[in-house]
């Protein structure tokens, strides 16, 4: 058998102005991205956002309509999949049913004509703790085990980039949690570049060093999970990752490092550095203000002292309170007619505020964020909510 001629490449993965069209449908639009070598990178988005298409272009299973793909200085844009130093863990594992686990894992090594296949396969099976099933067929393994074999089959080749296409999608919740930790451990151990495609925000945030949130074929925002969560730049990201209260406000004035905003409930202060890039905050402009439900503290209006000096506040009436054990989820209707969700930690034992109670909501100015006004305020709500539960 002729040895497969695999391109040698090392370095960061660069996607430059990558576009993929299927007929009239633009699956991926002018996407540029750098994945640093050795990092755990997640492509996160709802189904149909173009994340899997992007992954398949990197694997060589789809041919880009435009743009380039490089690993380090080596261009691989139109290379055949079997020439790329890239391996994939497929969503449904795609193990070879007629081969033993050993032969499955050895497949790539044999194609490349590697010398010590036996030792390397043994090491890979060791890594996933499945040495004992080497001689079995895939059908004799559980879903979780098959998943790990698929991982070993890819990792054993030490690819420059390892692609994972919703690898945990078919597992039940408990196993999925376990495998998340396992995947992270393996990635740290082998130090390969992992690109993980998922629609599960929790999965992406738990494992990835860096997350790119995709929607409609473009990247909405890219950054470490905490940054995406704390400083979303678009409404889609604010709603898709976790939950956000968003309401319209008008810029009243700029006061040093802060801007002062006004809405029917009164005035708010926001640090300038909490304003998303490119948002016009000159006086008189409309903007969207966002606050995460857990950043808001809630208390009876009667107990509230004079207006707090260091925070923003609104007053309202509790419309709904659901006790969840660790926390209580309140829905508050403000005097100005906004609906605001609040997650309050149950620090007191007597704690529930009753339906209809008058309350004051307060939050620190730097806990909020300011977004551009020309966006659908519900973008990403349903797709995000569907998987967060």
């Amino acid at each position, binding site marked *: 058998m002729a040895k497969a001629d695999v391109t040698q490449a090392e370095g960061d993965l660069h996607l430059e102005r990558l576009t993929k069209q299927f007929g009239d449908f633009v699956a991926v639009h002018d996407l540029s991205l750098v994945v640093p070598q050795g990092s755990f990178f997640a492509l996160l988005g709802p189904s149909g956002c173009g994340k899997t298409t992007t992954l398949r272009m990197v694997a060589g*299973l789809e041919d880009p309509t435009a743009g380039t793909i490089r690993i380090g200085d080596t261009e691989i844009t139109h290379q*055949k*999949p079997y*020439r790329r130093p890239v391996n*994939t863990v*497929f969503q*449904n594992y*795609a193990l*070879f049913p007629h081969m033993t686990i050993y032969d499955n894992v050895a497949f790539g090594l044999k*194609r490349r004509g590697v010398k010590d296949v036996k030792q390397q396969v043994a090491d890979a099976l060791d890594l996933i703790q499945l040495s004992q099933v080497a001689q079995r067929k895939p059908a004799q393994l559980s879903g979780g085990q098959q998943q790990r074999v698929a991982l070993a089959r890819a990792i054993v080749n030490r690819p420059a980039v390892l692609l994972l296409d919703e690898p945990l999608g078919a597992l039940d919740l408990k196993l999925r949690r376990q495998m998340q930790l396992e995947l992270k451990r393996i990635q740290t151990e082998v130090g390969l570049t992992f690109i993980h495609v998922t629609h599960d925000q929790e999965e992406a945030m738990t494992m990835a060093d860096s997350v790119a949130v995709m929607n409609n074929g473009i990247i909405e925002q890219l950054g470490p999970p905490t940054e995406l969560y704390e400083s979303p730049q678009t409404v889609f990201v604010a709603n898709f990752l976790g939950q956000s209260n968003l309401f319209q406000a008008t810029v009243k004035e700029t006061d040093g490092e802060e801007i002062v905003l006004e809405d029917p409930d009164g005035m708010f202060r926001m640090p300038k550095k909490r304003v998303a890039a490119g948002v016009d905050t000159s006086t008189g402009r409309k903007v969207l203000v966002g606050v995460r439900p857990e950043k808001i503290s809630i208390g009876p209006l009667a107990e509230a002292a004079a207006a707090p000096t260091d925070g923003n506040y609104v007053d309202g009436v509790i419309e709904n309170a659901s006790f969840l054990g660790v926390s209580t989820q309140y829905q508050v209707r403000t005097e100005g007619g906004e609906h605001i969700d609040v997650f309050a930690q149950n620090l007191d034992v007597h704690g529930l505020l009753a339906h209809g109670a008058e309350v004051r909501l307060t939050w620190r100015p730097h806990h909020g964020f300011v977004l551009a006004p020309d966006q659908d305020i519900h973008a990403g709500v349903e797709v995000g909510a569907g998987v967060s539960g």
Partner: protein
Amino acid sequence: MSAPTTPVPVASKPPTGVRIRNWIGNNLLRIYAVLAFIYLLLPVMYTFVFSFNDSGKSNLTWVGFTWNNWTNPCGAPDVCESVINSISVGLVVTLVATMLGTLIAFALVRHRFRGRTTTNLLIFLPMATPEVVLGSSLLTLFLNILVPLGFWTVVIAHIMFCISFVVVTVKARLSSLDANIEQAAMDLYASEWQAFRRITLPLVAPGIAAAALLAFSLSFDDFIITNFNSGQFTTFPKFIYVADKRGIPAQAYVIASAMFFIALAIVLIGQFASRRRKEG
């Protein structure tokens, strides 16, 4: 652990009527199965028994037992020639129909092209058309383009209807395969050809083998279309049909019985092999 010391209470016997009803209830399926098998196998047994008939020219009434038919199966005129003809036709047909049919099945399952839906539909046509119609229209065709009837016209006719069965069989197997598996192979440095040879082909092979066996038995068995398109060329079914007018020789019964046992053996070997593969 020690054995239980308390005596097990003896159940009182139910009345006879109930017992008979229970027995029938428990064994109804078995009785039905036995009757069904008798119905299916009686003609075969009859053929087998009469292959030992010391019959002379016609094998319709039992005369006496003999080994002669089995020791000399080619004893009757033209029997073995017709069997050899049938086997030759069958082999050529199997080879060509399996190859063409497999390629068509791959094209239909793995590729999107203009006229794919139409092709899918047309493939079923030879299976749905009455054989008399197929046979007679083929004969018309051969006569019009002045092809002399014989071995090759029979082969062409058989390939035509066998392809449909091969396509359907291989397609079923191929559709059940995950297309991702081939992509996974290519992702693991296998070229298109290697992915086909090492992954797809071994996985589809049982379907292809089944299709080949089906094609052979269909070709071997066919009488109607063959009768129209064979001219002076005689296959085994045609021989029996013709012989029926002056009495079928017992040797035909021998060959028919032998075919049955060979087929049975192939099935048993197949079952045994697949069971071993699953356990291994």
